[in-house]
């Protein structure tokens, strides 16, 4: 095939170019071939995707669907062939290769329920087997990732990580999920874990453009899942201590593919799909507004009939991966496009990625990875009361708000604005490792994330009521981070294996620069003007932030008889955001683990590891909040200053001290795996925005005054139900519970968090006559009250409802069926519970005189309202005379609903075509696949999606409130993947 030859030539050229300056590996003349298969030791079932490697040579390959591999150019002589596969114990076999001959082997691998030999690097300074860890590190492998029907990393984490709650914010493109591990540990800033890609800290901001009615553009949306080799996740505590003042919310470390040795392997994947709007929470209540029903103008399902539509989605991927023993590479491109399920809801993304690993000598290795993402998307106003088509049609009076005489005209008016955004993102990382001696190695990683985006919100002439001349808002944000991580490890082991030590000393730090420029043009003379400088009034705003944080870390791992492991370490941190009187911060940690099953035989127990850890992590303050500052705006042509930040020379990071304990267990012939952790994480010196007395004219100042407790349990279980040659069936599940409590207000009065209706309080409930703090963001809303004791509500005041916006329980279920060697069916469901969600849609509905809640609860049929629970109780005056219903402002408690939900998140089917069929295409493997995502919802309430999170912008984002907006679309994809 000509194209194959061409691609091989191109790949070789790429390899040669990458090796510029370095001599290519010499051609081996005395070589042979190893062919073989990898099989499950119990069932004899061939194992695909096992990594087979000739040790000491770099020659390796992944097995195909029938478990086969073929290793070429193996130097003649005796070799050890090693096979690794997640879920199996590593296996080796010795083989002798004769020049010009083919040696055949079969490698049998034993399944294991817990991957204790798996090596992780996150949070431990040097590569360490999980066996030796005193903490729990979650790992997603390339298998988990490659077949997941998702686009971005946040979607990938949904339901796949024990101890994580990952909830979507919207169906619209460019938005990300709220990710939370181990509860809300801070009252400022997002709780999103910090994210590293190949050792480089990347942008994880959830609010990178102007909000469009509760929906924010997120930097998570362009962290795509292409070519990810593995993801390691630490959820805070000792596992994150080495990241110092930056890791209280946990660390997600993504490793991208750098290729495996062998001839170029070309992977082509084509996906086509449809997206169907999830209409469970759309009721078309708006068009029943008084005066519109009887006209017969609409059927009552206007939104469903006229507005929403099924969308198309397509994705194309092409990747090349291969290399020699010294140089491996992985290069790919991906194009994704979707039309969306609402008008002006389309998105397109382009992704180019490359990874390279080069061994320049026996002891010196370089790695490089780079990616480029371009993301273009459109957006609609969603979740606001006016100007947003869904809200206005669903819970408002579209004719009144648009001034139109027909709903079709109103529809056209609400679709006038254009909200367009593009993102350009480059991430690159370079690292070098030098094995100075057998027991001493050094490594360094440097890299950068450069993300820029531009959002243009264009409201053309005729859209804005009262300002008929149109306006344009343009917002540009540029973000740059530079990361450095360098360290050296001295590893030593007593020859008898009784004691081993690994000591790592290193430095790690990053710098972030963020710049935001807003331009606004108001009033265009003519249609078609799209530059804001053509407007009658032009305004511009700018914001800049710079922050550096770095530190020295020391980590010691001690192993005793390969079953008792003790660890200890610390990080000393300095940062540009620390107050002038604060030089450094110290974060210590200590861990221990013990392979109990090595010493004590327990029935049904194959492996049992006990572990415990103590560790501190931190979260640095806002970039310039240590300084007393004055801000200024332009007013009447003059620069007009006022007080800004009051200043605090004692400002320091808040610290989370975590004590945790857990077990990793493999039971019942390695059929059941359990990963259980309990933890107590206490954030001290918590940064509260402490108000100054208004009489000072000063606003609020961040101060280290609070204390927040998170206590909980994280559980992951997997079960191999069946493991036969023809049928494999596994079940899995995760569970997470977190108790979140503000244990000390530091003398500060209750204050609002993430909006005025969520509160941080030290007195949520009374226990034994004393106040107990509430969870961060406890709901605090207006409620009807009886002020004169006559049993009739006559007043209104804000009170705590007893609810909170963040689920305190969440989990997932998954199952996978394998039938024969070719067919795999898997499903994933996730759930969250315990939280209350606030429905702004019903607020607007009620304001507009629509009793949305009753319609759903009681139906619309004649007389059905009798006996229904009204959203608003009747308000009485002091003498008991009815005054009509409470206003929506005075009875907001009526809009809080139980948020519990369960979603069937994914079902996917992969079918590997018979090898002969693939061979007919000159392919080594070919697969067909189909998947569905967001397929089914169960929710405790029928009004609002308990998963969705309307976001208010920067700062703490707790979610738990949304307006009339669309839930994530149902996605159905079909595709083919061919590997040449």
């Amino acid at each position, binding site marked *: 095939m000509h194209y194959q030859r061409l691609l091989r030539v191109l790949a070789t050229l790429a390899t040669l170019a990458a090796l510029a300056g370095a*001599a290519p*590996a010499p051609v*081996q003349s005395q070589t042979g071939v190893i062919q073989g298969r990898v099989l499950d030791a119990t069932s004899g079932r061939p194992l695909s995707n096992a990594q087979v490697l000739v040790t*000491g040579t770099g020659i390796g390959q992944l097995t195909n669907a029938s478990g086969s591999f073929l290793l070429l150019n193996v*130097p003649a002589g005796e070799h050890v062939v090693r096979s690794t596969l997640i879920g199996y114990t590593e296996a080796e076999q010795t083989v002798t290769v004769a020049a010009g001959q083919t040696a055949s082997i079969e490698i049998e691998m034993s399944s294991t329920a817990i991957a204790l030999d798996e090596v992780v690097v996150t949070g431990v300074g040097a590569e360490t087997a999980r066996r030796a860890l005193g903490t729990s590190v979650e790992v997603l492998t390339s298998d988990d990732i490659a077949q997941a029907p998702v686009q971005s990393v946040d979607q990938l984490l949904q339901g796949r990580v024990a101890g994580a709650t990952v909830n979507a914010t919207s169906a619209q493109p460019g938005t990300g999920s709220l990710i939370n591990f181990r509860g809300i540990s801070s009252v400022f800033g997002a709780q999103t874990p910090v994210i590293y890609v190949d050792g480089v800290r990347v942008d994880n901001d959830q609010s990178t453009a102007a909000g469009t009615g509760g929906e924010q553009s997120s930097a998570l949306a362009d962290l795509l899942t292409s070519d990810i080799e593995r993801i390691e996740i630490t959820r805070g505590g000792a596992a994150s201590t080495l990241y110092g003042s930056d890791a209280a919310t946990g660390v997600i470390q993504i490793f991208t593919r750098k290729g495996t040795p062998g001839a170029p392997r070309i992977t082509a994947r084509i996906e086509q799909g449809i997206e169907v709007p999830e209409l469970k929470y759309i009721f078309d209540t708006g068009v029943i507004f*008084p005066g519109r029903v009887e006209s017969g103008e609409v059927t009552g399902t206007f939104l469903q009939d006229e507005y929403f539509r099924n969308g198309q989605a397509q994705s194309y991927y092409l990747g090349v991966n291969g290399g020699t*023993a*010294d140089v491996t590479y992985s290069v790919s491109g991906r194009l994704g496009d979707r039309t969306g399920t609402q008008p002006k809801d389309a998105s397109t993304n382009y992704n180019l990625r490359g990874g390279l690993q080069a*061994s*320049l000598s*026996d002891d010196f290795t370089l790695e490089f990875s780079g990616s480029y993402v371009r993301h273009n998307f459109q957006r609609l106003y969603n979740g606001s*009361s*006016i*100007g947003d088509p869904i809200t206005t049609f669903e819970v408002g009076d579209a*004719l009144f708000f648009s001034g139109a005489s027909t709903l079709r005209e109103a529809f056209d008016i609400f679709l006038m604005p254009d909200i367009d955004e593009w993102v350009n993102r480059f991430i690159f990382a370079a690292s070098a490792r030098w094995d100075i001696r057998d027991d001493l190695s050094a490594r360094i990683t440097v890299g950068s994330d450069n993300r820029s985006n531009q959002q243009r919100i264009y409201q053309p002439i005729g859209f*804005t*009521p*009262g*300002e008929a001349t149109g306006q344009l808002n343009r917002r540009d944000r540029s973000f740059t981070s530079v990361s*450095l991580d360098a360290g050296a490890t001295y590893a030593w082991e007593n020859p008898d294996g009784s004691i081993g030590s690994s000591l790592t000393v290193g430095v790690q730090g990053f710098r972030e620069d963020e710049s935001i420029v807003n331009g606004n043009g108001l009033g265009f003379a003519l249609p078609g003007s799209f530059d804001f400088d053509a407007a009658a*009034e032009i*305004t511009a705003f*700018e914001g800049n932030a*710079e922050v*550096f944080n*770095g530190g020295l870390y020391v980590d010691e791992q001690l192993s005793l008889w390969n079953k008792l492991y003790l660890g200890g370490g610390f990080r000393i941190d*300095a940062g*540009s955001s620390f107050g002038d009187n604060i030089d450094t911060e110290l974060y210590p940690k200590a861990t221990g683990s013990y392979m109990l099953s090595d010493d004590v035989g327990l029935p049904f127990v194959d492996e049992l590891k006990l572990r415990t850890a103590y560790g501190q992590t931190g979260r640095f303050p806002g970039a*310039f909040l240590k*300084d007393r*500052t*004055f*801000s200024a705006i*332009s*007013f*009447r042509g*003059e*620069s*007009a*200053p*006022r*007080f*800004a930040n009051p200043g605090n020379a004692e400002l320091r990071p808040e610290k989370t001290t975590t004590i945790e304990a857990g077990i990793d267990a493999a039971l019942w012939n390695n059929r059941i795996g359990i990963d259980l952790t309990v933890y107590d994480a206490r954030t001290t010196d918590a940064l509260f925005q402490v*108000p100054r007395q*208004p*009489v*000072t*004219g000063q606003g609020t100042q961040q101060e280290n005054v609070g204390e927040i407790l998170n206590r909980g349990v994280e559980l992951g279980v997997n079960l191999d139900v069946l493991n036969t040659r023809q049928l494999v069936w596994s079940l899995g599940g995760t569970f997470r519970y977190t108790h979140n409590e503000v244990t000390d207000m530091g003398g500060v*009065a*209750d204050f609002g968090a993430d909006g005025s209706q969520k509160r941080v309080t030290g007195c949520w409930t009374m226990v034994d006559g004393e106040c107990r703090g509430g969870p961060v963001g406890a709901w605090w809303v207006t409620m009807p009250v009886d002020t004169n004791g006559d049993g009739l509500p006559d*007043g*209104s005041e804000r009170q705590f409802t007893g609810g909170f916006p963040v689920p305190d329980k969440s989990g997932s279920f998954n199952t996978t069926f394998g039938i024969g060697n070719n067919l795999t069916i898997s499903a994933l469901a996730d759930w969250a519970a315990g939280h209350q969600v606030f429905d702004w849609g019903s*607020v607007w509905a009620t304001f*507009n005189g629509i009793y949305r809640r009753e319609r759903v609860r009681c139906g619309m049929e004649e007389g059905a309202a009798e006996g229904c629970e009204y959203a608003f109780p009747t308000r009485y*005056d*002091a003498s008991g005379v009815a*005054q009509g219903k409470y*206003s929506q*402002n*005075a009875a907001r408690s009526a809009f809080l609903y139980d948020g519990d939900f369960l979603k069937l998140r994914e079902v996917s089917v992969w079918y590997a075509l018979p090898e002969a069929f693939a061979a007919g295409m000159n392919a080594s493997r070919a697969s067909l696949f189909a998947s569905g995502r967001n397929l089914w919802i169960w929710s405790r309430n029928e009004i609002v999606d308990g998963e969705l999170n309307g976001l208010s912008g920067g700062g703490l984002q707790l979610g738990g409130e949304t307006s009339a907006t669309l839930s994530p679309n149902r996605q159905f994809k079909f595709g083919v993947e061919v590997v040449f």
Partner: protein
Amino acid sequence: MMKRDISIPRWGRLAMAGVLLGALAAGGCDAIDPTGVNNPTTTDEDLAQATNPTEALLPGLRAQFARLINAYVVAEVVTDNYSIHGTGLIQTLDAPNEITPDIMNATGTSATGVYWNVQELRALANFVIDEIAPNDAGAPPALVAEAHYYRGMAYLIMGEVFSAVPHEEDGAPQPVEVALGRAVTDLQAATGFGPQTNAALARAYRLQGDRGAAAGAANAVLSADAEFLFAPPYDAGSIANTSVFFLVLRALQEMQPLPRLDFLDPKYTVRDAAIPIAKAEEMHLILAEVALASGDLAGAKSQLASAIRLAGTRGTVSFDDIDERRNADLSLRPRDSEILVRADADSPFRAGLVLDRPGDGLTISNISGTSLDADSVAALSEASDLWHSLWLARQEILFLEGRRLADLGIKLPMMLREIDQNPNISEGGPGTVPVLPGFVPVAPRYAMDVYSPVELYDGDGPDATLLSTMVTIGVDMNRVLVQNNASPFN
């Protein structure tokens, strides 16, 4: 297979690394120093570098004064002037007895931000007057006088709007009398700033009940300029006139006037519309009030007539109103000029108070408007009728200039944050609850804003038919003021 070792031996690489590190240590560090950050806002150190700090900070005071006036004006929704229709303003503000300190917790320039903004203005003026100007040899006296004016206005508005507020950190709430006394002191130090200083003094003396001083200050203004007007403009690009958003721009035009004041609405139609801070009409009205309180009916008539005539000479704007007018229940409000309105059940129906809406080219007074005419006032003989005309003239001519709250004697509570943070203020104590004169009706809810019939039209939309041409407002607060001798001069 052995990997090929590239040409540089280990000692060579060690040497290269050593040279690199040595070069960095020797001075290259600055070039790659990642730790330096630059705060883009002015810090204390930066301020110390300013060559003319008083001059530099004065625009900040002007801007903060504009913020305060915004909030002060929008706070008229608490009175009978406006009712709230929409979600941008907290509806509880329509029921003044229900306003709690947490409602006043805002720092923006809408109604609930009036406490924050008055304190920020006072604190910023303190900073300029007490800390910056004394150390600024180049501080022009005129600018220092202007700073005193803003602090005086802050104290004056404190006295008008709140029953008691602290004047310093950890300070106990100070009653109205102390605030007005400090206003007078500052305003007396600000006379170099122009007639607006005397206009403010006249207001302060009026609230103190000092007829002579009030008349003296008012006359001083009129002597300086018989048509005096101090109305600095707003800035469409930064601090815009907040009321314009609620009067015009938001799709739900959320501030809706009492039907008998419909002809005055919207007084401000564009974002940079100026709000009159001081004007000669108010001086005439103060002089009329002094005369009435002194039993000089002829003098009162003369001053009232002067105010009305001057108001008639002020500017107007032409406004295309696309709004249909709706009340808080989204029913159509009076919007036809054939509608007659009476101020209460005992008052006569009057024509010309309601404009045709939606309507093109409506003429609205943007400085002073009134339904009174000078001749009718001159024909009045009863003191009570003159008092009624005086209160009505104040309501109409000073419409959307913030005075109605003080005229009705309604005092708002301070913001919750102050109560929480100041150890010398406790909930329920002075200044922490709304204070209403007994004559301000609180039942039914929104009593000052209601009128009948509620259902004026047979349906919804532009084609709805008018069912009644006669509208009766529930209570005439001007009559209530007369009956209760509410003038501070009495």
